[in-house]
């Protein structure tokens, strides 16, 4: 029997600021040396559960507690946050905000500084910790010289300088591109194996976390534990789907092929999956015909012709980029951070001007157009809705753009109502924005752009920070708009999004356009995927293991059948209204 490190006993918690409890009746034991994944949709209370383990509850957030939590044998209510921080090391979601020091070394040293450790010993321990996460060459770098993945490593080292027993990760994948996310998972796995630490990962992106082969998965929904099982067992149930968590893509493919997923198949690890048992059904399914989708034949709505750009100082951010987008197309722009993706949108919206080359809208050169003039045709939705929302009431927020343009009040009202209806926000029209969830806020920002009736909508990471349910909602909604002829351009790291909801992917790397392809093709090309800091999907690997000669065709087959399935659902939904 392994030693129990953390135990929740009939634990419930209610924030003082909230009406109903966030966690209800939690009974959970975490054993020494275990790798535990806590999954759940947004608002399920999974972050709160993390706060209970690291002591932010009850120390920083006030609320009502019943039941008890013991960490390393002691009740957390009798322990200070500092005592607990020596046992539980937390790596927060927002690596930018967690990066307190001005250099890597200083940030790693932060907790040692607070402990009053003398300088020579501090330096020694900082170097050791940096080496454990492979950052020893970066000790004197400042945070803005690092990538998101590197910042996360520094956060990890900052926790590992102390002899902690538990490493707690709060959504470690949230701000990382797929390649960096994978590296993070591998690093966590390595550190765990070397040190035997207990690792708790809170995350809703299940497929990526499976890479560290967790010992156990706990699923939370509405503040209760709805499943607590080994991965193989859990994946053989429908708990994930019922609770709005996305199952691994290869698993969806197996199910689609009619395979009965049982623990004996080893569904949690694609490398161990008993492929011989599923090859036949997969093949049969692959051979079925699915209707293919026609590519958009619309007129060219947006054309970038040999566009180059650089800021007043420094190197070229965009080099000789030519892109054309047809009306009604859905285009993904992908690539590493700093590859020039956001600069591209800034140029399109007129926030920056190209040094050379032209941008045209329906063949008309946009050079002389002001930002405001462009905004009538091209709408931009930023990643973080909190950076866009400036009004307190939902109606006012959506109406803002029209009000500025001096639209007639009656027309304004009818247009705002119409948009709110399309966005499913009409019932909330007189609510304050602050009462909405993150996903709903995102919709408000989309509505505030749609109301201006742009012909192109550009979205920066439309699904970042959203769980699968909200993700599906937002994307289906965008798909409907697309069905009405709206051209959609999305900047994203999300491979699923690109695969399922776009017709074409443009890959940027170091300011150059390096590919312009069908998404499924792109993700089947290992080299290209690596350059774009994406990774090939698990579908591709599944096809490889099953020995199919054309894995890309298999991926496309899956996407098409997903799309067909979705359109069935949409029709069913439409019939409801």
């Amino acid at each position, binding site marked *: 029997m392994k030693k129990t490190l953390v135990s929740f006993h009939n634990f419930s918690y209610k924030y003082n600021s909230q009406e109903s409890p966030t966690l209800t009746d939690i009974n959970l034991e975490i054993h020494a040396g275990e790798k535990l994944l806590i999954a759940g949709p947004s608002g399920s209370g999974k972050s709160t559960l993390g706060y209970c383990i690291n002591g932010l509850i009850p120390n920083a957030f006030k609320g009502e507690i019943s039941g008890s939590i013991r960490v390393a044998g002691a009740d957390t209510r009798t322990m200070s946050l500092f005592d607990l921080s020596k046992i539980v090391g937390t790596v927060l979601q927002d690596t930018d905000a967690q990066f307190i020091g001005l250099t890597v070394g200083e940030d790693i040293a932060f907790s040692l500084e607070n402990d009053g450790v003398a300088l020579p010993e501090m330096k020694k321990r*900082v170097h050791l910790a940096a080496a454990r996460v492979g950052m020893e060459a970066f000790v004197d770098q400042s945070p803005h010289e690092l990538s998101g993945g590197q910042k996360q490593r520094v956060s990890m080292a900052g926790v590992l300088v102390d002899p902690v027993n538990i490493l707690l990760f709060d959504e470690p994948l949230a701000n990382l591109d797929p390649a960096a996310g994978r590296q993070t998972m591998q690093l966590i796995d390595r550190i765990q194996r070397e040190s035997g630490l207990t690792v708790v990962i809170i995350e809703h992106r299940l497929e990526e976390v499976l890479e560290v082969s967790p010992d156990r998965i706990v699923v939370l929904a509405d503040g209760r534990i709805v499943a607590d099982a080994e991965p193989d067992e859990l994946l053989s149930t429908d708990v994930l789907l019922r609770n709005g968590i996305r199952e691994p893509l290869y698993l969806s493919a197996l199910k689609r092929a009619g395979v009965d997923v049982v623990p004996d198949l080893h569904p949690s690890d694609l490398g161990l999956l008993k492929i011989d048992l599923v090859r036949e059904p997969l093949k049969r399914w692959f051979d079925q015909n699915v209707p293919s989708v026609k590519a958009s034949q619309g007129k060219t709505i947006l054309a970038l012709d040999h566009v180059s750009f650089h800021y007043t100082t420094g190197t070229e951010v965009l080099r000789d980029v030519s892109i054309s987008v047809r009306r009604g197309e859905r285009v993904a722009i992908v690539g590493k951070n700093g590859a020039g993706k956001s600069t591209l949108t800034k140029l399109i919206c007129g926030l920056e001007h190209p040094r050379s080359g032209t941008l045209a809208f329906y063949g008309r050169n946009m050079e002389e157009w002001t930002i405001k003039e462009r905004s009538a045709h091209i709408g931009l939705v930023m990643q973080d809705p909190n950076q866009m929302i400036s009004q307190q009431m939902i109606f006012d927020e959506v109406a803002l753009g029209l009000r500025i343009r001096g639209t007639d009040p009656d027309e304004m009202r009818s247009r705002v109502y119409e948009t709110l209806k399309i966005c499913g926000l009409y019932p909330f029209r007189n609510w304050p924005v602050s009462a909405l969830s993150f996903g709903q806020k995102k919709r408000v920002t989309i509505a505030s752009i749609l109301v*201006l009736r742009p012909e192109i909508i550009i979205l920066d990471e439309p699904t970042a920070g959203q769980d699968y349910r909200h993700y599906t909602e937002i994307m289906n909604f965008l798909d409907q708009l697309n069905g009405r002829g709206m051209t959609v351009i999305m900047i994203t790291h999300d491979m699923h999004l690109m695969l399922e909801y776009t017709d074409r992917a443009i890959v940027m790397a170091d300011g150059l356009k390096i590919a312009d392809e069908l998404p499924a093709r792109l993700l089947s090309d290992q080299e290209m995927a690596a350059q774009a800091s994406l990774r090939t999907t698990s579908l591709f690997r599944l096809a490889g293991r099953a020995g199919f000669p054309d894995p890309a065709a298999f991926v496309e087959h899956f996407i098409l059948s997903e799309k067909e399935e979705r359109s069935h659902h949409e029709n069913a939904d439409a019939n409801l209204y």
Partner: protein
Amino acid sequence: MKMRMLTFIDRPTPIHKMTGASKLICFLLWSIIGMSTYDTWVLIFMLVTGLAVFAVSRIKFQEISFVLIFILIFLLLNDLAIYGFSPEQGVQIYGTRHVILRLPGSYSLTLEQLFYELNISLKYFSMIPFALLFIVTTQPSEFAASLNKIGVSYRISYAVAITLRYIPDIQRDYQEIAQAQQARGIDLSKKARIGIRIKNAAAIVLPLIFSSLGRIETISNGMELRGFGKKKMRTWYSARTFAKRDYLGIAFSAAVLVLSLTIMLVRGSRYYNPFQ
């Protein structure tokens, strides 16, 4: 970002290499001199030294121009206010009265008043280079360490440092929010009328406040989780031991202070009087 204000600018110069603590001590010494004396020669000497040190630090003028212009405007206002409230101050101090321009009431412009206000301005100018240099050549965390070293509580020191640390982040937020609002058609350019522009600026300030508040909460949680505030004392990773140049700098500053005080004692006045 074009307008970066008062953030650390890293260059390999002797000024940057001095420890934060010694720079702070030097700055305090120069401030005492600047505040205590009105001696034109001493002030000119300080100004020249300040400019020389500035040149050594290789900080470019345009990197601090915004703040400098801000200070100059206040200085001008200050000079006008002194003239407005006590136009005879110079005459009182220097004991003579050379009128240049006859104006109603007591507002006649005198050479003494001009000279007095020149001295006031010189006082500012003699201290500005050191104040700015201390801020832009000291890494924020070393800045905090040095405040802590001269006896300021480390919580307060760190609060100062972290403010400086996150100024660039908040400036970036501002930029992004401004662009998002402009892309919605909110005109922030000079084309819009000033009234409308002020109203439109509110569309940026509100999201900026919320995003900053969110950031503050995350940072303070992160800091507490790593034991900030646990003990009465803390050590500093960026702390450095004094080198020769630190002692030299402090010794030089102290010597100027002694010299200035001696001049005051010998003359029996804080003012240099060219009128007698």
